[in-house]
């Protein structure tokens, strides 16, 4: 009687381990985390640091296509494009916004290094396009005048 009880316990113990092992199987690869440090940064230099951008060079091969004057700061259309080879990343930074980084794009091989989007601007500010190409960082800037701020409208 006692022996039977022991056997039952042993078997359930082994089963339990097997189930646990099943649960601890391979976990699906998790997509890259949202870069909280970079999006929380409140100025240009801190944002560069959080993005790991070092030795950033000004580049004429980088273009920001946007209006000189934005009537409505809540919707400022922007196109960032560049002619540099092997672009891996494009980020949009707005100097005088409460949080500097607006968007950060990962560009896989085969995707053109040209992105259009729309951003909010609190006030007249420099807008930066930051690009990582071939492992090196480049930046271009353009001042956009805002006649009506995009926060609190």
């Amino acid at each position, binding site marked *: 009687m006692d022996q039977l009880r022991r056997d039952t316990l042993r078997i359930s113990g082994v089963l339990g381990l097997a189930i646990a092992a099943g649960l601890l199987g391979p976990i699906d690869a998790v*997509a*890259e985390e*949202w*870069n909280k440090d970079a*999006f929380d940064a409140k100025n240009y230099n801190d944002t560069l640091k959080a993005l790991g951008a070092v030795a950033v060079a000004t580049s004429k091969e980088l273009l920001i296509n946007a209006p000189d004057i934005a009537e409505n700061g*809540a*919707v*400022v*259309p922007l196109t960032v494009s560049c002619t540099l080879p092997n672009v891996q990343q494009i980020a949009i930074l*707005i100097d005088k*916004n*409460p*949080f500097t*980084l*607006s*968007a*950060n*794009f*990962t*560009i*896989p091989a*085969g*995707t*053109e290094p*040209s*992105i*259009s*989007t*729309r*951003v*909010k*601007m609190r006030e007249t500010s420099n807008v930066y396009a930051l690009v990582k190409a071939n492992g090196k960082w480049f930046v271009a800037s353009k001042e956009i005048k805002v006649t009506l701020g*995009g*926060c*609190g409208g």
Partner: protein
Amino acid sequence: MADPMRVRALEKDGSTEVKILMKHDMETGLRKDDAGNLVPAHFIQKVSVTHNDKEVLAAQFGVSVSKDPFLAFKFKGGAKGEKVIVSWIDNFGDKRTDEALIA
């Protein structure tokens, strides 16, 4: 439940242009409502666009992307009738996935 987005994909001369219009308030967390209370931040954080199981664009957004975010870009390849799939997730964990056939 998040509202659907509009996705268009157009193939021309060997590259596919994708245009996406997401439906989201993109609250900054800095705005006050009429009663003077701060409206909590609620915004899309990550967007992923795939074609044939390959990611063709990954984006991370901050609060300063405009309400109802718009994205346009091009990738090489893509044939008429193939699918382009767009997914986003916001800071509340809400998700939305929509797709379009390349025209």
